[in-house]
């Protein structure tokens, strides 16, 4: 997996965690601001949920390259 993809997952989880913290820190949640945060959180959750879906692993045997290197 490329670093970007990994970073994306990590960053999204980080943003989501910040939203959770925001809710935890509020003594009384502002309804309007809270709605904004919920919308942002829902979008992140939706994207992260796609990463949790089952996708078949791709398998490849690197044989010829190794044989070449052995020949070298």
């Amino acid at each position, binding site marked *: 997996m*490329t670093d970007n993809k990994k970073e994306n997952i990590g960053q999204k989880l980080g943003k*989501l*965690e910040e939203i959770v913290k925001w809710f935890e820190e509020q003594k009384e949640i502002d309804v309007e601001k*809270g709605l904004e945060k919920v919308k942002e959180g*829902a979008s992140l959750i939706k994207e992260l949920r796609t990463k949790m879906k089952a996708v078949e*692993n791709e398998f*490849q*045997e690197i044989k010829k390259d190794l044989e070449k290197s052995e020949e070298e």
Partner: protein
Amino acid sequence: MARRTQANLFSAQSDEPAKPKIPRKKKIAAPDETVVTGRDVVEKPEPVFSVGEFLDYVNELFRAREYAVVGEITECNPHPSGLYFTLKDKEGNGVLSCYMNPYAYRTLGVQLEAGMLVKATGAPNVYKPKGRFSFVARQVEPFGEGSLRHAYELLKKKLEAEGLFTRKRELPEFIGTVGIITSRTGAVIDDFRKNLKPLGLSLRMIDVRVEGASAPGQIIRALERFNARMAGELDAIVLIRGGGSLEDMQPFNNELVARAVFASHIPVIAGLGHDRDVPIAALVADRATSTPSFAAAMVNDSWRRLFEDVPRFEDAVFGAYEDRLRDVAHALGTAAAHLAGTFRAIAARYERHAERLAEFFKRLIDQANDRLKYADRVLSAMSPERNLKLGYSILFSGDGKVLRSVDGVEKGSRVKARLDKGLFEAVVDKVEKK
């Protein structure tokens, strides 16, 4: 025919390894050989060699196949020109001088020392300048449980002292591309793949021997290959093999393999089955387990935060907001009820006071009316018109001023009199003062 069948059966049932075929690249012929002419077979005289020719001939014959010799090392002298060691039988008096070339010795990956029982594989050779017989070993490996364990302990102690077992790198989060080093045959690769979660991972495998003399070299080349060409792509390398005896696991107790694992820039997960002694390569690896399925679990585990945190965060965000909305709804309900109650109270109070207010205002109005009537009566009584009707009149002087007494009224002056229904003017005829 019967003999050939017997021979074949014998060959098939024999425990001996198959003898390698003799290469026939360059044949050094004996000076004289048997010659067949026509129907007669003529015995030629014994061949005659020069010393050099004979040694070349013998060495050629020796090199035609490989031999394996088991013996205890009595002397072991590493030298820049190679390794010189002596083997002898544990019992009996056989002694064999052995030599190993520097490259073969450097790539051996096993520490040899006197007292160790080893199996040397190679071929005999006579060193021409000295006429000395020796055994040229291509491969030397510890032989027997005791010797294998001793070699294992020696290497373990050595690498431990160098600190190769203490460096443990963190595996990256969300491992997506895995380099696998194992044999394509057998259940190991299937076990590993079967136990991986379907996360859309990219699996790149290099097939290697995991047992035998060629295994260390192949494993090392595979590690180097992944690091040289796929370092930016791979998140981890997985080195896996099923369980086996100490002898079976020798490639993973090889010093060069252990050092190649340590040299890898990509974190290495070792999933090497073993009975008692953890393979040295597993001790050096960043993570080690004893089965391929546990190695797969480690890869899966790198995704744990995603699978655990997303549902938890989802509950936290929506739960907190739902709670807040419930509070607001409750507060609004209470406020509405309070407002309705207030209005009801106001209405009740209004109703209660309305009659009194009405009475109060009516009284005010009656009082006002009474006062108006009284005023009207007073005003009516005091009205000049009423007095004129009663017979009174108002006299005005010639200049229009009301005459309130006879003072200033003289005889002959003109006056004006106002009476009911009109006026008249008159001249004063007489003035009498009282």
